């Protein structure tokens, strides 16, 4: 069976200038990322701000050309497909539904746009499909008549999901789809995404900085640090026995609603990762609690981690 998403040795470099006279810097946003996502499953991607999650998502969506490496979506190279075919295959849902919905159009027109862009559907067919998908995501026909500013954050995210699904794509890239929402609304949206995946057989790449959310939705989880996947495994295995010190720190820093336990000491120090200045050796070594001499000059190899995963750490 072909994987829904297959990514090989993916790399993305940006060249940035911090000032007029400053020397050009190389930002390595994504560095040698390889994984595949089986059809019908959910790969969760977690990591701190700036670690390259959205850059990875944009390359998979074909919105950004990789510096090196390949992306296959449903066995095809996106750059070989035209826009219309691409839109039928893979769709994004982003964090900020307000920024991604045209403020001057009605919700139902926004949702109809991908269908119209295909140029292959009659008006009646478009109306039928838009009505169907709005209902499916829990928006009434009356909501469809409104402008984005007249909806709540959660309703806007429902509209964004409707727009992503109206062409019945196989694959949806969710980049922090609930990060801007309140918990009660987050729960509604997560439940909706789960129902849709089950009923429509979708594949998700699900990006979030919230580990609890990822544990809830993902079948497999990849942990990113400074552009690399430092650990990946089946969700249960990764949460039960995290192998990489960074994964362990991330898990420890989740504040579960358990009174009396206080806030744990993560011990990562205050050196912030900087993708324009990646440390030699293991890129995590300046913050790692258990780093040894070797970590400062030798990058760890990718090692197999049962049952299905990998880890990059000398001591794992």
């Amino acid at each position: 069976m072909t994987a829904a998403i297959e990514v090989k040795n993916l790399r993305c470099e940006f060249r940035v200038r911090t000032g007029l006279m400053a020397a050009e810097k190389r930002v390595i946003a994504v560095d040698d990322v390889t994984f595949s996502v089986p059809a019908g499953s959910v790969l969760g991607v977690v990591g701190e701000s700036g670690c390259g999650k959205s850059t990875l998502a944009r390359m998979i969506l074909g919105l950004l050309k990789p510096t090196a490496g390949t992306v296959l979506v449903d066995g095809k190279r996106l750059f070989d497909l035209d826009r219309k075919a691409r839109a039928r295959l893979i769709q994004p849902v982003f964090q900020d539904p307000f920024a991604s919905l045209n403020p001057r159009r009605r919700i139902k027109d926004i949702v109809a746009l991908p269908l119209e862009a295909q140029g292959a559907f009659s008006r009646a067919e478009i109306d039928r499909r838009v009505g169907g998908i709005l209902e499916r995501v829990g928006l009434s026909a009356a909501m469809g008549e409104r402008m984005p500013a007249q909806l709540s954050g959660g309703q806007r995210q429902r509209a964004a999901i409707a727009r992503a699904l109206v062409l019945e794509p196989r694959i949806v890239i969710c980049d922090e789809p609930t990060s801007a929402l309140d918990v009660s609304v987050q729960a509604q949206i997560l439940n909706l995404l789960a129902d849709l995946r089950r009923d429509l057989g979708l594949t998700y790449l699900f990006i979030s900085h919230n580990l609890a959310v990822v544990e809830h939705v993902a079948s497999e989880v990849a942990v990113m640090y400074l552009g690399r996947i430092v650990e990946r495994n089946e969700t249960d295995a990764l949460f039960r026995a995290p192998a990489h010190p960074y994964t362990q720190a991330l898990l420890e820093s989740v504040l579960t609603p358990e009174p009396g336990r206080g806030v744990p000491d993560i011990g990562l120090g205050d050196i912030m990762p900087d993708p324009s200045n990646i440390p030699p050796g293991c890129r995590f070594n300046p913050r790692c609690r258990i780093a040894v001499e070797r970590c400062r000059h030798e990058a760890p190899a990718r090692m197999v981690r049962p049952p299905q995963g990998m880890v990059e750490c000398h001591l794992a």
Partner: protein
Amino acid sequence: MSALLEVEELQVSFGRTAAVRGASFRVAKGETHCLVGESGCGKSVSALAVMNLLARGGQRSAKRMSFAGTDLTSLSDREMARLRGNRMAMIFQEPMTSLNPAFTIGSQMAEVLTRHKGGSRAAALDRAAELMGRVGITAPGMRLGQFPHQLSGGLRQRVMIAMALMCDPELLIADEPTTALDVTVQAQILRLLASLKREFGLSILLITHDLGIVARVADHVSVMYAGEVVERAPTAELFRAPQHPYTRGLLSCVPVPGRVQRDKPLGSIPGIVPAIGAGFAGCAFRSRCAHANETCTRAIPRRPMGDAHDYLCRLEPGWAELQPA
């Protein structure tokens, strides 16, 4: 314990929007008190009303609003300004909004002290360096000469905390101080706040939407919904025996690592927060509440439930235990 800050029936409106509708909460000396609720419920507006920092057009009134025995509503603007940044200080979610990009960290920190307490600039800079060390900033000397944009988000928030401590305040109001930060940095900042509370005898009013934070740092909690405090309790009690249907719903929405059941839906609260205008009567949660009936459209009693625990609902204490599972 005696209250340092007491707020009773606070009302704040902006034109026809009622942003805070009779919120009551108290912060005891030396405690961390959390004000928790979802966006728009009036947490920030309540804090700004206490500090008399409401945006233009904001009208506040309260049955009682006192700080260390002083009636805040009777203070002139000048007297209030003297209190602010001095005996009570505030930090915000996005430190950049309260740091001036054009001045160095050092000069901004020193200015706070010289404005309120006088003294030399050199002495103020010494105190700034000392406090930066206290909040875990390495090489404070170098940081004092830097501009805000040269620091990471976590460092900026540490600077804000150090700045808030310059005049040795009794009360620190922190409005979502870690919401913009990564989880690992969040843990560091929250630990810092807890240690400052112990060492400086600070009282903290911590505003957050995150029940995980509440559980881990609060001594007491006030849960807000649509401009009202719907439940107040000691932290352990709130999580052990929540009474208000909104509190219970909110708790069920939080995915807890290690307890996730992936094939089951999360608990959720249906619907959305209604828009509430002046003259609204009854329980604001009724459009989303599974237990609503027509009594909920009338005045709702505040029900005491043991020590420092009360809630605003028609249902009697212990109702939840009588529910079929």
